[in-house]
């Protein structure tokens, strides 16, 4: 396995963070509670472990892996280190889907309304993207179409917030959009995991095509890569991996941008070799950042995960823009 040391290191780090995140928090938990949780003990400690901490950490791993892998694949496909799931409009359209469910109060009638609607939103956004860009679109056309789709979704989300029937609906939407794992339960895990796992599996299939694309679309086609199939894998994989994540956690930005970029030098800049480390790194980052938000948050004043990643990610994005400018020949 290429770069196995990097992957093993990231996996070890992830396991360490998972362990930390399971035991850190307002309620102090011990190893006994963990074992109790596994054996079905119904007292408080094991209950907190089983019903709150475990699904939350697991969901963090899933969401982070989906974002990291999507970012790596999108950057490889667009041959641009500034690409991320936000760029192709997937995050925004999934967000719009969720907001529609919140706005019309569907979530009160049907428990899975928000996540289901978010995945529908992502699917519609992707469909619109492919229609706008056409069957033989280049990477640049896809980026422009993605920005347009994202803008439409953001505008419609704004419209719904504008017309919100009451302040409570508005605040519910606003908090949801900030992105967090506060509501994580086994239901969310059960809903999101098949989507995210399937999406990430599709993303792994793009590996060889992404390598060939390093030398441009014409070279990739001449090497027998079917760009149309590759595009469907990229878009479909991203829609499921990110849509599934946004559906349960809201919009968490910049993870797909930052993680692949930081890890790229360690895999000799090879797009195919970057997917697995980015999935591991994304999971590690989300689990760590979510633990940080839990520890920083005061009583009644929760810090949202999406806010934290944006606060850390946006300056990084600016630095990245400057750095790529300087390095360009």
């Amino acid at each position, binding site marked *: 396995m290429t770069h196995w040391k990097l992957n093993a290191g990231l996996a070890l780090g992830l396991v360490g963070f998972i362990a930390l995140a399971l035991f850190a928090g307002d309620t102090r938990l011990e190893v006994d509670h963990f074992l109790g949780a596994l054996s079905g003990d119904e007292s408080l400690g094991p209950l907190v472990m089983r019903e709150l901490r475990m699904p939350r950490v697991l969901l963090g791993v899933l969401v982070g892996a989906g974002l990291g892998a999507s970012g790596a694949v999108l950057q490889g496909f667009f041959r641009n280190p500034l690409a991320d799931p936000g760029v192709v409009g997937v995050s925004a359209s999934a967000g719009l889907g969720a907001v529609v469910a919140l706005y019309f109060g569907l979530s009160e009638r049907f428990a899975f309304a928000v996540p289901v609607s978010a995945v529908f939103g992502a699917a519609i956004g992707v469909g619109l993207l492919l229609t706008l860009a056409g069957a033989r679109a280049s990477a640049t056309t896809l980026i422009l179409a993605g920005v347009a789709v994202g803008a439409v979704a953001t505008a419609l989300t704004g419209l719904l917030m504008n017309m919100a029937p009451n302040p409570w609906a508005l605040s519910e939407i606003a908090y949801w959009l900030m992105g967090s794992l506060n509501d994580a339960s086994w239901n969310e895990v059960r809903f999101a995991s098949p989507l995210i796992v399937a999406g990430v599996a599709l993303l792994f299939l793009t590996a060889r095509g992404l390598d060939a694309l390093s030398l441009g679309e014409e*070279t990739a086609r001449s090497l027998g890569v079917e760009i149309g199939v590759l595009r469907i894998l990229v878009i479909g994989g991203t829609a499921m991996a990110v849509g599934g994540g946004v559906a349960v956690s809201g919009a968490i930005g910049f993870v797909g941008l930052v993680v692949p970029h930081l890890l790229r030098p360690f895999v000799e800049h090879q797009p195919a070799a970057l997917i697995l480390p980015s999935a591991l790194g994304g999971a590690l980052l989300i689990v760590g950042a979510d633990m940080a938000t839990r520890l920083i948050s005061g009583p009644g004043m929760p810090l949202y995960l999406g806010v934290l990643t944006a606060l850390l990610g946006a300056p990084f994005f600016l630095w990245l823009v400057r750095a790529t400018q300087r390095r360009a020949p």
Partner: protein
Amino acid sequence: MTQLNLQRVGLRYGDAAALIDASACFESGQLVALVGPNGAGKSTLLRVCAGLADPSDGIVCLDDAPIGSLKFAARARRISYLPPDGRSAWALKVHTIVALGRVPHLKPLRRLSARDEAANKEALDRAGVSHLSDRRFDTLSSGERARVLIARSLSTQSDVLLLDEPTAALDPKHQLAVMEILKSEADRGRLVIVAAHALELVARYADRVVVLQNGVIREDGPPATSLSEAVVRVVFGVTASGGVAPTRLELL
């Protein structure tokens, strides 16, 4: 023995015709040069031969099989194509880039076999870039990059090599080196078709020169007839008394 056969091939982009009624039959062992002014249809002809552009009229056959009927990977194993813009989006190592030539041979989710590695090594040797194998592509000069990309198209071990202006922007020494590589591939029995602007270079190395003008094949023959004074005057609008002379530059 490989044949690449164009039968009355035409290609239009909207109303503009890029290629009109082009017929030719290329055979293995030949080094064919495509020359002509900018926009004459050299790149279009190469892309049609590579199966990357579908002709609007006519048909291109590789040994009697229309190129469009071949599976993508099967076509890629038999025809390699080097586009004109020699860039890499990422700062890949040279050996990684050369290994991309093996993509059409790889089974899904498998790693490079010993056979693939041998092909890569041979390609690096033939292109004279073995010593650069561990360097990063973005640290190379344009001459070195051109040779690395040629090594990439050699590692496929295809019957047909198509190259779009591999000598553009190179100094005289690297131009000669590139043409030497292509000549020796043709001598090994491959069909090499190369688009180029350097007429003296073409006159020395090519077995056959196809002259294009406004999408039409004007001349097709040995350099002495294809690059005669009259042809060069009409097609390129420059004069070369006695026809284009082969370059007298030699590699040391």
